[in-house]
């Protein structure tokens, strides 16, 4: 989030969910579905089947799920619509909800990376050098990953895709517009939120991701908060390695969902010797 306006739109969207009683309706709908005539009858019908029982049950379950998720996506559009209405009364920049959704659309893409040279710059000293073999990645025998789940992923999304939401909101934007700047409080809040997000990762035991994200910021900013966080996470990672629990605290290598940079980091953390980690930890103390 880059501006206070974007934050305000998020709040308006969430208030709209409440105003429209979406949560309450969701719970009611779930309870009604469980005891509905359709579900009871269909369950009896499937139980009587001698063959293809599993397919019939799966199809029925998926049909219910698709319907449910379709309604959930519809509710998001409703919250966008009412939320934009609330937002437009705050005399703020009407284009900011669009920029927010554009950022949300790109949020899964990793914006920065760590290459071998970064690790050398961050961890090496005149007397300590990282071993090249720490970065070696074993080649997979698989060239093609095409696992297909039994359900259509798009039909089970809780939110509509951002581009659809943008198009719908754009319809409401009129010429009338306001320029508003972010307050000092917002900037302070944003800075603290960045700290807090990473610190929460550390507190929840996600030492790997916390360290990875901290290193990416620290290589550019030299902010002491991140230096401390790097020290804390490295210390925990060393302990976990010694207790054979490292995989509880760092992600697994994944050629599909992880970036090359993240897989490189995971590999380094797995391969590096505890004695090397100790040297690096001392540099961040």
């Amino acid at each position, binding site marked *: 989030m880059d501006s206070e306006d974007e934050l305000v739109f998020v709040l308006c969207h969430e208030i709209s969910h409440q105003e429209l009683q979406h949560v309450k309706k969701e719970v009611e709908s779930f309870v009604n579905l469980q005891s509905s005539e359709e579900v009871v009858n269909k369950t009896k019908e499937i139980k009587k089947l001698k063959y293809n029982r599993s397919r019939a049950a799966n199809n029925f379950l998926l049909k219910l799920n698709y319907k449910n998720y379709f309604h959930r996506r519809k509710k998001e559009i409703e919250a966008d619509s009412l939320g934009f209405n609330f937002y437009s009364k705050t005399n703020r920049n009407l284009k900011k909800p669009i920029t927010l959704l554009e950022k949300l659309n790109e949020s899964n893409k990793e914006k920065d990376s760590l290459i071998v040279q970064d690790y050398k710059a961050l961890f090496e000293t005149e007397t300590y050098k990282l071993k090249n073999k720490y970065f070696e990645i074993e080649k997979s025998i698989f060239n093609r990953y095409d696992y297909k789940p039994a359900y259509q992923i798009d039909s089970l999304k809780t939110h509509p895709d951002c581009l659809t939401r943008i198009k719908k909101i754009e319809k409401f934007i009129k010429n009338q517009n306001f320029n508003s700047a972010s307050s000092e409080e917002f900037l302070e809040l944003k800075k603290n939120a960045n700290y807090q997000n990473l610190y929460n990762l550390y507190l929840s035991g996600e030492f790997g991701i916390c360290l990875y994200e901290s290193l990416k910021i620290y290589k550019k900013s030299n902010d002491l908060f991140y230096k401390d966080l790097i020290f804390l996470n490295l210390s925990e990672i060393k302990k976990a390695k010694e207790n054979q629990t*490292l*995989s509880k605290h760092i992600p*697994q290598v994944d050629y599909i969902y992880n970036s090359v940079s993240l897989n490189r980091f995971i590999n380094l953390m797995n391969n590096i010797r505890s004695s090397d980690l100790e040297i690096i930890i001392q540099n961040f103390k």
Partner: protein
Amino acid sequence: MKKIVLVVLLVFAQFVEAQMVELSKLSSGKLYDSDVIKDGKNNIKGYLLLFESDKIKKETYILEYVVLDENLTKVTNGYIEEMKYSSLLLKADKVTVDLILYNNKLLLELNDCTKDGEKLFRRYRTLDLSNNKMSNTFIFRNGKIENNPEFDRSLKNFEANQTDKIIGLDEVGLVAIKEEKDKTGKDKYLVCLDDSFNQKWKTIYETSKNQYGFKELEILNSSNNFIVFSNHYTKGGYYKPVNSVVVFDAITGKLNYEFLFSNQDKYSHKVVDSYIQDNDMILLGNYSKKSDYGHINDQENLGLFKIKLNLKTGKTLEEKFLNWTELSSKIEINKYGEIKKEGFVFVHDLIQLNNGKIIAICEAFKGSPVTTNNIYFLEISEKFSFNKVLTAEKFRNKFPGTSAHSNQIKEFGAFDYMDFQDLDDDEFLFYFSDNEKKSKNRNQNTKFGIVSYSDEEFNKKHLNLKTDISTIFAYPAKKGYMMLIEFFDAKNKSSQIRLEKVNM
């Protein structure tokens, strides 16, 4: 290994969390079987799991297969139609799968399997890893491939549903081994097939019994030029005390030669591991005083052998024997391989290193009652003499009221040595369990041993995986990693499976 992995994968159907894969979401079906995908260096490269998805008609099921890579990431999946035998007297409990990785393909051997583990109706499929396409079912019968054969589980059609054994060989392709009498006659032959099941070559290796009996081949090794089988002669349904190695030309199929172990009237030989180096082959094995059926004589085990052959000519380039007595200065072992208070040695692996040395992994055992004891890691010099020994002490498993030959103990998975990983550059990790088998005592159920070999030194590490809230089991996984499976005491907490790098 198969048994170990089966245990590992049976828990795959349960939920695992955090950064670990949610394996229960792989399939909504019932897990039938699974197998590891191993490369030529004995390292795990992935897994294939087979689930029953639905029953669509009498004895006919839709099965879902799911392939995972070495990091447990889902690679591909699909649905296949398979039959499963079911009658009043005999019922197949599941369909099992055994995998061979060859030429960037997986050869799947599928079998109906009863509760007692009896396998029936063997058939095959291939999964092409370049495009993840699963083939139709095929069998090799009466000298040819039957693609998509019509299966029938009635007894009158039992014969029509049988297949000769098919193996997949890297750089060679599929090779069918015809051993039983069929419409083509009694001749025993090999048929090599290309990807479209066209015959590349056929070679008859036996037309009638010779002075030793009939050949029974088992694949030992192969390269782009040679296919090597171990052979154990049979006569009248019994094994004879004659073993040999049979070498074929992989391009033409021509039988190059049969190598008969020397002095078979006095000794029995067993090839434990073999290595092809250009045109030569190294056979590493165990030998004993002669036994009636040609297996290793457990109580009169004499030592190890190394034989180097020219693969083209069969000429013996090197033949060395190493007796257990030469180890007696390092451990209390007698000339018959009996270690004081522990039992006789069983040789699990003989690993040839790049520097000419060999690592032998032996486990002490007693055949009656079946008892397994400590594991011995031996470094053997280039000159074939014992260099150093590391003793890995572990729990002594005893099975009262049992009696078995070492081959059977291995087959039933009663030994504690699990497997090894080749980390390259003559570095290895060896895994063994240190638990009381079937024990409910958590203190005994959480110990796991690892021995590393690096810079020509052995190091051992015993992991005590005991926690206050769970029970953890460990198994070898991808290169340099072990798989830890954690079962929590709390009923509402699902099991976790994770891969942990081994730090030695």
